[in-house]
């Protein structure tokens, strides 16, 4: 007769936390976590007691108080009696504006430079190497200041455009390039302009639909319809017709040299600080993106290019249809961090007097209210939120273009 006994059940002993490899890792992690919590609690408590000792407190009440200062570029209604929270909002929008513009131009620049750096043309590829190496290896703050200084020193003063008989006249009667910024005509939305805009938006949708249709037709039947001029036709003709039918509801507000003795009035002013910051961030980050693009292209196996050429595709088609789509998979992840860099580097705006969030909330508001800890906490929260949002969005796009394995 055999009796089957269960193997003795191993009971948990305290010493196993150290001696048993199954538990040891967990033990050390728990200890590390505990130490971290204690350290932060100590720092936090120290901060609170010291603040209390100095008679200071943490309070966000200042956000509701009038800011008292003016800002030179505001995308929303703002005056010196608006609250500090409003001033922060103005700063946030300015940060987002310059980051958005910077991301777009840096990407365009970067892709161009990256592709051209691999060009067979010796001169072009060397020029691009020079661009990349120069801009990548000089700090962006220096570029911002250089560009701003050159702008203010080289461009004509605003006053040279003013008066009955100015030194400089407006380009086409519409554009002025001064050391305080560029003035362009601003659209004036009259009654009925909504219809024109709606028609234009519908035209954009129709253009996209038409291009999809031609692609589909090409793939299913091999018939190739022209794409260039019909697209342009669909895009502009209906909107122009409606514009005249509605009695030209959209007018232009031109910069007026006679309205004021100091500055041009009217039109849309793109301030010199915005231009300098935008341009500097674009060319600086563009150089990094160029390297990402080059790396991405080199990562596509040469066989792909050769196969495409063997099929009779021309070099630019090989690039657009075969190489770049595959290279994107390599390019996108580092591109995300370049976008984050642009957003974070835009905090250097104060060097040229651009009113971003660091300049308003983290600069003037902080100084005038003396609420350093609160302002810096809010700044950290803002940059964290915006950076995580950008990477979330770009990760979604990355998923969409990444290699789908079946």
């Amino acid at each position, binding site marked *: 007769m055999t009796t089957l006994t269960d193997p003795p059940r191993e009971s948990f002993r305290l010493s196993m936390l150290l001696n048993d490899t199954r538990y040891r890792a967990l033990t050390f992690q728990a200890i590390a976590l505990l130490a971290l919590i204690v350290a932060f609690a100590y720092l936090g408590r120290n901060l609170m007691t010291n*603040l209390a000792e100095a008679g200071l407190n943490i309070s966000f009440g200042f956000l509701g108080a009038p800011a008292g200062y003016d800002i030179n570029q505001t995308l929303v209604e703002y005056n*010196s009696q608006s609250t500090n929270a409003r001033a922060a909002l103005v700063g946030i929008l300015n940060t987002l504006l310059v980051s958005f513009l910077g991301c777009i131009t840096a990407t365009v620049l970067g892709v161009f430079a990256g592709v051209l750096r691999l060009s067979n043309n010796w001169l072009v590829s060397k020029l691009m190497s020079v661009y990349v190496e120069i801009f990548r290896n000089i700090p962006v703050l220096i570029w911002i200041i250089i560009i701003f200084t050159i702008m203010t020193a080289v461009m004509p003063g605003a*006053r040279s455009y003013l008066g009955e008989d100015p030194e400089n006249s407006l380009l086409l009667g519409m554009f002025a390039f001064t050391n305080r910024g560029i003035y362009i005509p601003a659209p004036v939305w009259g009654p009925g302009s909504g219809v024109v805009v709606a028609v234009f938006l519908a035209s954009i949708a129709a253009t996209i639909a038409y291009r999809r249709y031609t692609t589909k037709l090409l793939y299913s039947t091999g018939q190739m319809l022209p794409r260039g001029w019909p697209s342009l036709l669909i895009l502009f003709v209906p909107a122009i017709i409606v514009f005249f039918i509605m009695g030209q509801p959209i007018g232009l507000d031109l910069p007026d040299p006679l309205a004021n003795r100091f500055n041009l009035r009217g039109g849309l002013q793109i301030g010199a600080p915005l231009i300098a910051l935008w341009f500097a961030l674009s060319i600086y980050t563009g150089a990094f993106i160029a390297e990402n693009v080059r790396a991405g292209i080199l990562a596509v196996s040469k066989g792909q290019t050769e196969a495409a050429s063997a099929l009779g595709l021309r070099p630019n088609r090989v690039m657009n249809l075969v190489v770049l789509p595959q290279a994107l998979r390599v390019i996108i992840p580092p591109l995300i961090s370049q976008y984050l860099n642009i957003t974070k580097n835009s905090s250097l705006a*104060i060097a040229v007097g651009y009113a971003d969030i660091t300049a308003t909330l983290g600069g003037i508001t*902080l*100084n005038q209210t003396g609420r350093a800890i609160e302002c810096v906490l809010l700044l950290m929260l803002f940059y964290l939120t915006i950076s995580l949002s950008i990477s979330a969005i770009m990760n979604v796009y990355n998923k969409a273009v990444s290699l789908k394995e079946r």
Partner: protein
Amino acid sequence: MKNTAFFGALTVATLAAGAAAASTLEDVQARGKLNCGVSTGLVGFAAPDANGEWQGFDVDVCRAVAAAVLNDPTAVEFVPTTGKTRFTALASGEIDMLARNTTWTFSRDADLKFEFVGVNYYDGQGFMVPKDLGVSSAKELDGATVCIQTGTTTELNLADFFRSNNISYEPVPIETNAEAQQQYLAGACDVYTTDASGLAATRATFEDPSAHVLLPEIISKEPLGPLVRHGDNEWGDLVRWTLNALISAEELGITSANIGELSAGTNNPEVNRILGTEGALGEMLGLDAEWAKRAIEAGGNYGEIFAVNIGEATPIGLARGLNAQWTEGGLLYSPPFR
């Protein structure tokens, strides 16, 4: 700047306890150097000369304090601060005192927890414009682009002035006086506004000062003075009475020329008390008897410091005006040494 503020805040958090333990006076004596916050460069008030030596009206206040405390007017570590970084630097203990043409206001005193020890220059905010603009009053500045040092009271006064006169302007916020000067000369702004004394000092450095005019409007009261942290009253007293000693010295006719002679003893008991030959005022401050004598010897009395750095004989050419002694129609009035 974000970093400066952040680390400043952190150091407030971590160092405040340490600062409370030892008094500022003991810290300074142990260190053998006075850390004095000054401007990043405003000729006449605080700027390094060709040899890298800091010179100026505010600098001499620092030197006087160093002479009183450390018996050496050169034992000063000058810390250049911008309008934005100065308060964090003082609150965190990075500097022992701030002498950087800083306006005494209610909220800086009560909310930021600083102690203004007195006024060494009564100032007001003015405007400078190029002469060829033909502007004769600040009220004609509608639509102008204005350069302004960010983080200062002038920024708020400017907004109030244009708002109350119902005219518009475009601000160009700038970090330091040097940058503002460059922007103004390049024509990136039509007007530069800051304290009238600062405007005069800035204009003096221009290639052609006569091509620029100061407008007659003075739109604010700007009492400028040295300040220390709340919470160390002994140190505050020391800086306050050093400044008062300089002012009283001028009133009582003590100059760097005759101070040796006077400290042998005079018939005026107040002079004797200041110079330490009578009474024990120095002891009450925790110093020796000759503290004020050394302070005055460092750069002369208030009038001498004024004349050498910013007076009418200098390129800056400021008249005494409000900054004359009360006996001569000015506002300078030191409490008695008793």
